[in-house]
């Protein structure tokens, strides 16, 4: 299995007629992902064409969901309108809204997150690369690629990856694939201070997924979400876990690219998080080149076969 999405998941692309959304909708179609509908208000009735694919465009998420049965949406809507796009998914009762958009005002996210309380929709992101469940074809084709990750670097398998950073996720996936180790699902939860799904949420899902045999958690400075996940792992998880925290050399008080990557106190530094990882039995990657290596060590120590 996998978490969140399977190769059969049908997806809606909000913002499919914009440059960014269109480009990644095409790449997802090429990967074999079931892109069922596009949404662009005012362009309902048009068709998004790519090779043999004809994707119908709707004016609203509710219409797209009703017409196609899709229950997952990916959002490529520009920052001023992105929070509204998320709320539209919640209102339409979707299962999952994956928000790629970078630069959404924090106040908008605070409001949307409050509005999502008690509703069934799960939000991933914003400011994230999305979710990939690799397929069984060449270069993992036939999988479900939601967002902007390069599909071809994946390989179907048993390792779960969760990260706040896009390129670091690709780095970890590439290392695993190069060593012949496949992935169950890779989840980018995004680099913003207010996001929909935490490291812990994803770790719990990986822990419950029988096909996920080990996981890599990638974090960075700022906030304490990685610490929360590590403590839960120590108490509840028997699967091998490797971890990496970026930003050991970041100066305090400066925002390092990601809106959420800022050291504010003594508990959200890389050193503090790494110390908690160690204390919780997570094998720490000394450098970003060592992420797959660290997981292999953790698996060996627990007698778990990753392949």
């Amino acid at each position, binding site marked *: 299995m996998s978490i969140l999405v399977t190769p059969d998941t049908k997806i809606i692309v909000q913002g499919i007629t914009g440059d960014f959304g269109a480009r990644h909708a095409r*790449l997802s179609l090429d990967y074999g992902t079931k892109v069922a509908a596009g949404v662009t208000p005012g362009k309902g009735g048009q068709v998004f064409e790519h090779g043999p694919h004809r994707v119908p465009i709707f004016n609203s998420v509710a219409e797209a969901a009703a017409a196609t049965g899709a229950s997952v949406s990916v959002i490529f809507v520009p*920052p*001023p309108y992105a929070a509204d796009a998320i709320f539209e998914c919640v209102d339409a009762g979707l299962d999952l809204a994956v928000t790629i958009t970078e*630069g*959404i*005002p*924090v*106040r*908008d996210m*605070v*409001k949307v*997150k*409050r*509005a999502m309380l008690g509703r069934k929709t799960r939000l991933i992101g914003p400011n994230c690369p999305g979710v990939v469940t690799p397929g069984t074809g060449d270069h993992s084709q036939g999988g479900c690629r939601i967002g*902007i*990750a*390069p599909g*071809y*670097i994946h390989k179907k398998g048993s390792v779960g990856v969760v*990260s*706040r*950073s*896009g*390129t*670091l*996720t*690709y*780095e970890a996936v*590439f290392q695993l694939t190069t060593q012949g180790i496949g992935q169950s699902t890779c989840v980018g939860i995004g*680099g913003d*201070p*207010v996001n929909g799904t935490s490291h812990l949420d994803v770790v719990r899902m990986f822990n419950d997924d029988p096909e996920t045999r080990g996981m890599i958690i*990638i974090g*960075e*400075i*700022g*906030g*304490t979400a990685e610490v929360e996940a590590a403590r839960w792992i120590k108490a509840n998880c028997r699967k091998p876990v490797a971890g*990496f925290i*970026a*930003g*050991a*050399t*970041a*100066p305090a008080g*400066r*925002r*390092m*690219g*990601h*809106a*959420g*990557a800022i050291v504010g*106190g003594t508990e959200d530094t*890389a050193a503090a998080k790494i110390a908690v990882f160690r204390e919780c039995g997570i094998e720490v990657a*000394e*450098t*970003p*080149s*060592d992420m797959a290596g660290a997981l292999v060590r953790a698996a060996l120590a627990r007698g778990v076969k990753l392949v």
Partner: protein
Amino acid sequence: MNIHEYQAKALFEKFGLPAPKGAPATSPAGFDAALAVLPEGPTMVKSQIHAGGRGKGTFKDGFKGGVKYCRTKAEAREAAGRMLGNTLVTAQTGPGGRKVQTVYFTAASDIKKEYYLAILLDRASSRPVIVASTEGGVEIEKVAHESPEKIVRTVIDPAYGVADFQVRDLVTRLGFNAAEGKNAARFIRTLVSLYGATDASMVEINPLITTPSGEVLALDAKVSFDDNALFRHPEIVALRDLNEEDPKEIEASRHALNYIALDGSIACLVNGAGLAMSTMDIIKHYGGNPANFLDVGGGASKDQVSAAFKIILGDAAVRGIFVNIFGGIMDCNVIATGIVEAVRELGLKLPLVVRLEGNNVAAGKATLAASGLTIVSGDTMADAARKIVALVA
């Protein structure tokens, strides 16, 4: 984005938040006009820089204190003359200090007691939180460390805003008397409005004071705004003071590059924030020191790469460059071509190590190798980091 205290106080005035009367001046010629706004008598002179610890700071010429209490306007005029144009070094500015280009005069207040009041984002609950303390005028981090029980926190529900009972509770726990309490409650509610209406990421008042007559006043004001929300606040963007920012960082933002200057000797050029941070880390891990954080974004164009090289080379401390690109979607050959062009155009003499991985990487590496330039190739991040550290040593 940060603003100066005098700008924050002007914003406070617009919202009806009480603070001592004040006026800024940017030249000695402006001192008299600024002081004319204030009543006769004790006056504060405050250096306007975007860094804390001003009161305990020292100027480069030895003059002590970036914030001064003066008994008369004449004394204030003299102190302001010492500060303006002088460079103030505080615990937060680094050894280089910051040049004071504006001074702010305010009427000195009669202080009964000092408090701390702030509103910021509570990341754990994804909601705004009011943080307050009876220990004002000292660093809040110190209070949090030494007497955490003296800090009170109230999380605001974004669906309802701050509730009456929450404000009452704060006022009671901070120990205000009846007259002060009324003013404090109004102050807190107004500050919450300001925080929301301006898309602030933090407002901090340290100290907030009471006077013997029961007034509640903001003696200091620190406000920073969510960069993501600036598009809907042109009036706030207009407050940006480019003098307070590193010129290289300003140039970078013009090219949609994310650059932060550091004090090492190995410059980095990376795609993606997480990878950029960990590139700095891996340089340090192998014994070098990063000169900067530089994220060219997911889809680095040739122009961006070229602009990035120019910015990097504007830092005289740079002794070598580490380019680390994981081209997931973008074509590594496009990046390689951009690097070769930039190096040729700039006549780069410093050691350059490039680690390329991802889409069309073989062609990218071939382009680098065929360029005839001395570009060292790294196979992995670790390999490349070791190479650049060795070349710079």
